[in-house]
Structure formats: structure tokens, C-alpha cells
């Protein structure tokens, strides 16, 4: 043990006056929770690699393999090119879920308490978590985006900016969903199991991996109910706008989303994601206040 010095009060140069709360305190709370997420993400190199691995396996292994038998339905477009926007969403999805899982860790290791007793509003802690999740997830998204030329998608500034914005939004929504669930779950195993049970179906239903043309009715209904659908489709629009597609290919691969025959505009799709994110955030904050 190191030696300790005794410092009498008179020698203590540090008088601390804590300013009263208010929005400044809440902003600080958001910032510091966000920062911690980044520090922890950066320290956990294994997590960076593993959460990148899964989308890459989907894209190159599954996509590469299925391309053999799926070439008939893609109008000459490489299946991997088609899947690429879905994988962009997927990269964000897994990372964001992992960020939300940290709430469960924080509870298990007690750190949650340190945050809960601080003189900041609990909403700012949830917001900090969600911004943190969105930031690290978007970072993963950017890495996957860098692979675009490998699947015949050229870089373009507008595509990158649009996709990045959509990824941030999607990641924010998923982290909010995750935090909402994580607040009520005290065991990591349970959270992971729930994640597997919910995330995979949501991903498959969203049309990340197959086009929405000619789906069976029940599948089409589930697809419209899946909030991911409204993030995946705009990402695909943004990527495909950058490609030279025949009208037939566009019709087959990018039919857009319809509600009872009405073609839903992209702005409305994005609005759906925003509203889902806000609703999840609101519930997460409410649940967090009771925690």
C-alpha cells in the first residue's frame, strides 16, 4: 500500500462549490454518459471486431453463397449489392443492441447506482446512453460503408451522408428500444436471449436481406409492422440512387413500401423511425425513473 499523507483542512487548497442543477447539469449528464460509452467501446477491441464480423459473414458468405441460386430474381444485379444496404443496417443494429446491453452490465456491476444517485435527471442518463449507442454504431456503420466498392457500389458524398444520418437514427432507435428492455431485465443471459429472439426476426422481416416484391400476404403485413423496415428501405433508396439500374431491376428490387396500396413517401418512412425512437426513448426514461 502506498503511504498516505495527512492534509489538514487549512492546507486544502480546494474549496468546491457545486453549482445548482438545471439544464446545464442535464447537458453535462448526457455528455459524460456519452463519453463513457465511447471510452468503453474503444477499450473493447474484441467487441469492435465481433460486431463487425456478423454483418460481413452475412454479406460475403451468405450473400456470396446464395448469389448462385438467386441470380434469376435480381435482374442481373449482384445479390451482395442488393444486400449491402441491409447489411449497413445490420451492422448498426448489433452494435446498438450491445450498447443497450451495457445497462444490464451497469446494473450487475453496480455502476448504474452511481448514475442513479447523481444530481442529474434520469432522462439525461438515458439520452446519454442512446447518443453513445448511436455514435459507436454509426462508427461501425462507416466501416461497413467503406466496403461499398467490393460489392459494386461506388462512393458518393451524398450517399455516405444520407446513409450515415439514417444509421445514426436507426442506432438511436435501437439503443432506445434496448435500454427500454434492459432497464427491466437484471440478468445478462436473459437480455441476450431476448435479443436473439427479437432482433433476428425483426432483421429478417425488415427486408434487409430480400426484396419486398411479391411477398406472401402475412409476411407483407409483418414487414409493415416492423419498425426496421422504415429504416432499411430509405438506406436502400440512398444506396441505389447511386447505382445505374435498369427500370426492371428497380421495380423488382426497390418496390418501396405501401400501406393499403398507398406508396409511403421516404419522408414518412423516416418519420416512422423518428416516432418509434421517441416513443421508445420516452418509455425507457419512464422505466428508468422507476429503476
Amino acid at each position, binding site marked *: 500500500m502506498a503511504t498516505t499523507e495527512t492534509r489538514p*483542512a487549512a492546507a486544502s487548497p*480546494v474549496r468546491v*462549490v457545486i453549482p*445548482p442543477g438545471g439544464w*446545464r447539469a442535464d447537458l453535462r449528464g448526457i455528455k459524460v454518459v456519452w463519453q*463513457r460509452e465511447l471510452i468503453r467501446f474503444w477499450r473493447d477491441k474484441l467487441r469492435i471486431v465481433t460486431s463487425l464480423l456478423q454483418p460481413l459473414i452475412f454479406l460475403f458468405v451468405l450473400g456470396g453463397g446464395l448469389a448462385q441460386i438467386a441470380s434469376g430474381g435480381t435482374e442481373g444485379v449482384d445479390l451482395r449489392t442488393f444486400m449491402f444496404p441491409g447489411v449497413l443496417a445490420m451492422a448498426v443494429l448489433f452494435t446498438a443492441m450491445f450498447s443497450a446491453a451495457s445497462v444490464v452490465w451497469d446494473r450487475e*456491476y453496480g455502476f448504474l447506482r*452511481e448514475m442513479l444517485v447523481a444530481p442529474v435527471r434520469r432522462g439525461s442518463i438515458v439520452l446519454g446512453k442512446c447518443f453513445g449507442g448511436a455514435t459507436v454504431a454509426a462508427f461501425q456503420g462507416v466501416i461497413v460503408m467503406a466496403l461499398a466498392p467490393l460489392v459494386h457500389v461506388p462512393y458518393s458524398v451524398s450517399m455516405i451522408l444520407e446513409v450515415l444520418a439514417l444509421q445514426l437514427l436507426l442506432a438511436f432507435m435501437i439503443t432506445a428500444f434496448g435500454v427500454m428492455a434492459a432497464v427491466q431485465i437484471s440478468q445478462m443471459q436473459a437480455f441476450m436471449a431476448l435479443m436473439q429472439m427479437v432482433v433476428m426476426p425483426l432483421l429478417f422481416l425488415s427486408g434487409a436481406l430480400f426484396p419486398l416484391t411479391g411477398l406472401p400476404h402475412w409476411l407483407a403485413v409483418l414487414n409493415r409492422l416492423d419498425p426496421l423496415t422504415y429504416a432499411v428501405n430509405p438506406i436502400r433508396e440512398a444506396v441505389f440512387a447511386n447505382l445505374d439500374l435498369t427500370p426492371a431491376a428497380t421495380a423488382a428490387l426497390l418496390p418501396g413500401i405501401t400501406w393499403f396500396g398507398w406508396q409511403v413517401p421516404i419522408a414518412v418512412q423516416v418519420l416512422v423511425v423518428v416516432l418509434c425512437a421517441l416513443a421508445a426513448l420516452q418509455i425507457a426514461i419512464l422505466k428508468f425513473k422507476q429503476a
Partner: protein
Amino acid sequence: MTDLAVQVRELVKRFGEVEAVRGIDLDVAAGETFGFLGPNGAGKSTTISMLCTLLPPDGGSALVAGHDVVRERDAVRRNIGLVFQDPTLDGYLTAEQNLRFHAELYGVPKAVVPARMQLVLEMVGLWERRRSLVQTYSGGMKRRLEIARGLLHAPRVLFLDEPTVGLDPQTRSSIWGYIEQLKQAEDITIFLTTHYMDEAEHCDRIAIIDQGRVIALDTPEALKASVGKDRVQLQVDDTDAAIDALRERFGLEATIAEGNVTVAVEGGEAFVPRLFAELGVPIRGVSVARPSLDDVFMSYTGTTIRDAESAGGPDPLARMMAGRR
């Protein structure tokens, strides 16, 4: 500003049917080290959670550092430091990062953070290790870091919930060293809970709490004096004869504790010469002990703190059942 660091009136907390805290009154003066002593499940942690704004009370009121724990929650939080029973550190961050996180969260002005951080880390002897990840720390180091963190924002009241539980004796005594030092160095009120009798002696005043009520509140000396009787232990070969003789000649009921015949008498030293003169049973040795807080707890509750725990355990419902026997 009031001179009272903590002021509690008729505080009540129920969990369903169970009244965990049944009307507690307390005044803790600024600068005092106040101990909350009782077995597990007595309501210590529940009370401290209410004082720290973590649990809403079901009745009564509490002011901490002059602020109401319900209506002025954030003001209370800014003025208190907390060290919990269970660790609340982020093992994936360094000690420095843990403290910086805390400083930001509490809004410690940027200009004073480095100096303040050095001060508290040196106080608990962790300055050299500030760049290590907390997960590499031992249990005692973690607890010290928690104490340092609890002090970082210069709280007026520091709450320590079982600060030494689960630590080895050496670390326990070093933690007490820091607390003593802290009393000297900072103008701070310390409110702690413990179920170790020997640790309660470090406090200026103690409240003994059992089954949700304060059953005694005074300085350790006064509490011990209130018991009055010293504990006299005799080493004898024939314990039965000694017990019989004590009953016949002195009218004292003796018991056997740790293999020795034990009696409680007033004025233990003066009793010893009479003992040798009148007992009539050969004595090999005698020891006289002043009453300890164990005896105090025993005299107020009719049971030792250990027995109270094994009877009730930490489950308040089980305790209530035990109390109703």
C-alpha cells in the same frame, strides 16, 4: 442554514405489509460522526436509502444538509457523498476516469477537478495507481476508491453504508484510518451504518436500531455506562461447583462463555477480592471487562447481534415473523 446535518422526524417505510422502518427520529449535528448500528434487516439500509433520496419515505420527513429529501432531491444529492455496501465502480475505466465521470456528473467546476482529484486519491493512497483499470484493484482498493469518489465533490454529509463489510481485518482498520483522517481534514458529517460492534466505537454517537425502530441513541461511552455491569470471567477447574458457589454465596447467575464461568456484576474490580475470599472453589485466573457495545445491544434487545441476525436474517418478512414469536 441549520446546524443539523441530518434531521429525521417519524420516518416510515413500508414494503407491502412489512413496516421496515417504523417511525424514526434523529438529529445529527454538523461535523459529527454518527453510527447506525443494528443487525442485518433492522432497517439501516432502508433508512439510509431514504436519506440519500433513493427511496421515497411512506411517512415522516427528513432534512439532509438542510434540504428536504423528497422536495429538494437534487439539492440533497449535490450535498451528500455515498459509499455503498456493494461496489459501484466501472471496472473498465481507470480510477482517474471513474473520478472524472463523477466530477462531471456532479458538476464540480473544471478548474478545481485536478487538485481535488489528487487530494482525495492521495488521502486513500491510490494516487500512484490512478491510471490503472479499476478491475485490477483488490477489494480494499476498490472500497478506498469509492470513499475517495464519495468525497470528490466535497459533500457536507458522507454516507457510508457498511464501509468495511467483506474486507479483511487489516484493510478494515486502514479504512477506519482514512475515516479518522477525514474527520480531521474536512469539515464533514459522517453518517455510517455497521453491524460490527467494535466499529461503532469510532462514532461520536450511535443509534441502535432493531426491527425498524431506534431503541437507544447516545455516545458509545454513555451507552456502555447505561449497562452498568462489568463482565467477570473466572478460570476454574470445576465449573459446576463455581456456578453453584456463585449462586449460593453471591446470589449471581453465572453462565459459561468461551469455556469460562462468566458473571455480570457492578464494580467488577471491587468484586474480585471478595471472590477470592469467599468463593471457596479454587480459581486459576480472573478477568474483568468493561461492558462492550455487544453488551449494550444485548441489554436493549435481549439478544446478541449475531443471534438477532441468525434468527431474522436480512429478509424483513422473516424478521417480522421472528419478532412475533
